[in-house]
């Protein structure tokens, strides 16, 4: 298997992992807000959110800048997908903030809940968008 094929395979696996992480993040948020508010679920959500945020960074290039594989996995096509995804995340976060603002104003939701909803919406939209663009490109 040459580097191009390896990059292709890793990129597809990465996109599928993004879907899984996004769903786990959303599930942690929904469970934490509705059914089970506990320190464990809160901590799990926070950990997931940090990992999810890291997936939207060019971390491969930071850790292994000279690797050919890292360069292929973060070439200009991937950077464009990341840019589009972060745009989607921004708009989703803004929409979530505007929708939850009245609830926070009327004290239905606390500041912590609003922060979680906004962060989850942003990350979920960005990751789903990123994974979809990557999988579509590899067809």
């Amino acid at each position: 298997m040459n580097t191009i094929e390896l990059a292709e395979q890793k990129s597809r696996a990465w996109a599928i992992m993004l879907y899984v992480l996004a769903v786990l993040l959303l599930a942690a948020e929904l469970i934490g807000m509705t059914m089970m508010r506990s320190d464990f679920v809160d901590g799990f959500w926070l950990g997931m959110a940090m990992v999810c945020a890291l997936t939207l960074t060019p971390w491969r290039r930071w850790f292994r800048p000279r690797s050919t594989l890292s360069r292929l996995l973060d070439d200009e096509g991937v950077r464009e997908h990341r840019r589009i995804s972060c745009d989607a995340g921004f708009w989703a976060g803004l929409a979530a903030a505007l929708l939850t603002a009245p609830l926070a104003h009327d004290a239905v939701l606390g500041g912590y809940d609003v922060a979680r909803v906004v962060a989850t919406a942003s990350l979920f939209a960005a990751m789903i968008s990123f994974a979809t663009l990557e999988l579509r490109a590899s067809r």
Partner: protein
Amino acid sequence: MSETLLNTLKDERERLGLTQAALAERVGVSRKTINTVENGVFIPSTILALKLAAVLERPVEALFRISDPT
């Protein structure tokens, strides 16, 4: 007015008997990027366009042209 970038990348690649993966390897990008450029989904940077032109032995303007439907 809506401008789109058309390209002859697939024809030129096939003229040289290259697969998307082989072309990707020669220009140093992933096969996905070649695929999205060929399909007109992604507009490549000037650097990538010049690299593609060099590998495909054609001038850039023979590979890419602007289409204005209006």
